[in-house]
């Protein structure tokens, strides 16, 4: 018997780690992984709430989030490859052709 808040706190922690990662990391792929981390945090929230509410809708939602994450991963990695081909870098701070 542990409070549901524990799970929620863990999920918030994961989400915050994801945001931090997005803000401090340089590598585009790592940035993208940070987003996955955020999504994982969200998923944990869904499951925790589903358990509390005793409904399965949260589970369904997580399922869809995973599908979306997969789709995003496919597209995102393709975009990263496309950028790498034109710019020869994976450092996100060097991708700043468009500015001001």
């Amino acid at each position, binding site marked *: 018997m542990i409070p549901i808040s524990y799970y929620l706190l863990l999920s918030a922690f994961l989400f915050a780690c994801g*945001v931090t990662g*997005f*803000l*401090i990391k340089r590598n585009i792929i790592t*940035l993208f992984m940070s987003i996955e981390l955020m999504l994982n945090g969200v998923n944990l929230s869904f499951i925790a709430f589903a358990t509390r509410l005793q409904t399965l809708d949260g589970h369904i939602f997580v399922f869809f989030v995973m599908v979306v994450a997969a789709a995003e991963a496919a597209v995102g990695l393709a975009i990263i490859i496309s950028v790498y081909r034109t710019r020869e870098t994976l450092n*996100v*701070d060097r*991708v*700043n*052709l*468009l*500015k*001001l």
Partner: protein
Amino acid sequence: MTPLFQPWLIPILPLLGALINGLFGKRFSKAAVAVVALTATALSFVVACVQAAILLQSGHPALEQYYGTWIQAGDFSVNFGIYLDHLSMIMMLVVTGVGFLIHIYSVAYMEHEGGYYRFFSYLNFFMFFMLVLVLANNYLLMFVGWEGVGLASYLLIGFFFLKDSAANAGKKAFITNRVGDFGFLIALFLLIQHFGTLHYGALLVVRDSALLQMPVETSAGVLTAIGLLMLVGACGKSAQIPLYVWLPDAMEGPTPVSALIHAATMVTAGVYMVCRSNAIFSRAPIALLAVAIIGTLTSFFAATIGITQTDIKRVLAYSTVSQLGYMFMAAGVAAYSASVFHLMTHAFFKALLFLGAGSVIHGVGGEQDMRKMGGLRKYMPWTFWTMLIATLAIAGIPPFAGFFSKDEILWQAFSSPHGSKIFWAVGLVTAFMTSFYMFRLIFLTFTGEYRGAKPDAHGHDDHHGTPHESPWLMLAPLVLLGVLSVVGGWVGIGNRFEHFLDPVIQKVSVEQSAAQNGEAAATPVSEGEGTESKSTENLLMAISVLVALGGLGLAWFLYVKRPELPEQIAAGAGGLYRLVLNKYWIDELYAAVLIGPLIAFSRVVLWQTVDQKVVDGTVNEAAVAARDVSAVIRQQQSGLIRSYAGWVAAGAAAVVAYMVWMGTR
């Protein structure tokens, strides 16, 4: 009502002309373009005359026609419709009539310019919007015309000159007008919010309309706000302080455009709007006072600047600003009839002046500096005589048109319950200056010796050598306008015009005005004369005529008798010193001591400091400030994804913090 002369034809005909010329004009010959444009305008004028006759015979205060719903939003609706009463009738006749004459003039004037068809297309386009503005039956439709004329004016100022100054002038006109529109638009929103309609009929005329029923004490807040905001709009369009900056610059446009838009019609839209909204202004004394003060200040201020200008069109531009100030002053003392009367006569003589100036410029090969003219009387007599008539009219010398309207304004400023002796006195001084700088223009341009480039010795370029009279196509409108400038004021003899607009004007009922102004206002606003005040009126009339003659005399003295004087006076203190040293006669000394400082003051303080630095400067400073902020915003677009993410995260945190704070409070 004959089916042939439907009122909707009045605006639609110029629109048709504009479309035909705009779409197919490229393939037309110049003559064909001119025929299309002139026919459209002439027919529009004819229909307007028929409609005016119908209105006058019907005996109704107003005729209204609906052509379907434009907007229907809940209980708020706006129709397409035409509202014809005495006010819009005058405006309509002036716009179509003067517009037609200026079209004729342009046929010859624009002969050698490129983009002939575009010019006429825009000109017709302008006529369309102007007629929409004056004939609209509600404020929103009026606003459509309002914006449309601004747009057409912008097109006409800028489109023919691939030069920076024209582009900037066009931009300035547009932006300044947007500032005014900002006020107008908010006034409209306030009207919708408080009264739920924008139709003149429902808002301003129907006896039990919410607006007219409003007791003055409670209405003051709302109506004052609406009135002041409308004044902002009117200031933009009619070039009043502080939004007049664009009008002198607008003189970059072709001269017929200046005559039509920047003298006779568009710039009077603000006056029209104030007069149209007289029901609002009469119930908002503070707003009305603001109108009077702004008008008086503008008329004085612009006249002093007019004294110093040397560009013939700029003199006329400042003179226009000044005369518009007169109209505002009249409207501000609730003498709406006088205001519209002056609007009408001003349209005649100012259009004539501009067209005459155009003829002069045309005749001397594009020169606009009066110091390089002179003696043109013998080269272009027609232009001289017509312009002289117009100048006599604007100076207020009887029996020319301007005398009647100006006298009426001064009398009303003096005697109206909303008026004041101060307005009258300033108006009188302005009249003096007006007379002075206008005759200065005449003398500099037409008398003395020709100071421009001498006929070319080598024989080539004979077109620009000797000044020459303009073709008859340009002179005909001048003559017609000259006739109007003489007789146009006679309708005002015996105070006939004074009551012409009475059906339009919503008097504040006696009990309302009593509550507002004590028993002083118990006499209805535009009925100022009694038997004993008749002698006062005659006295004032005599004074103003004397003042006008005084201005004439001074100008004659300075520019004909002693043409070297102004140069020395303008040279400032040094010149003044020499004047005294040279032991001139006492009257010359008098002129130098009184007029010299005035001219110096108006040149240095008013024109170079206030006009160029403060007012113009404020506009420019605002632009610079906007650019600075823009640069800061630009800096934030560093192009770095992580920075952007930082903004998003920080924004999210702010929203979360706010929502939680609000939610748990």
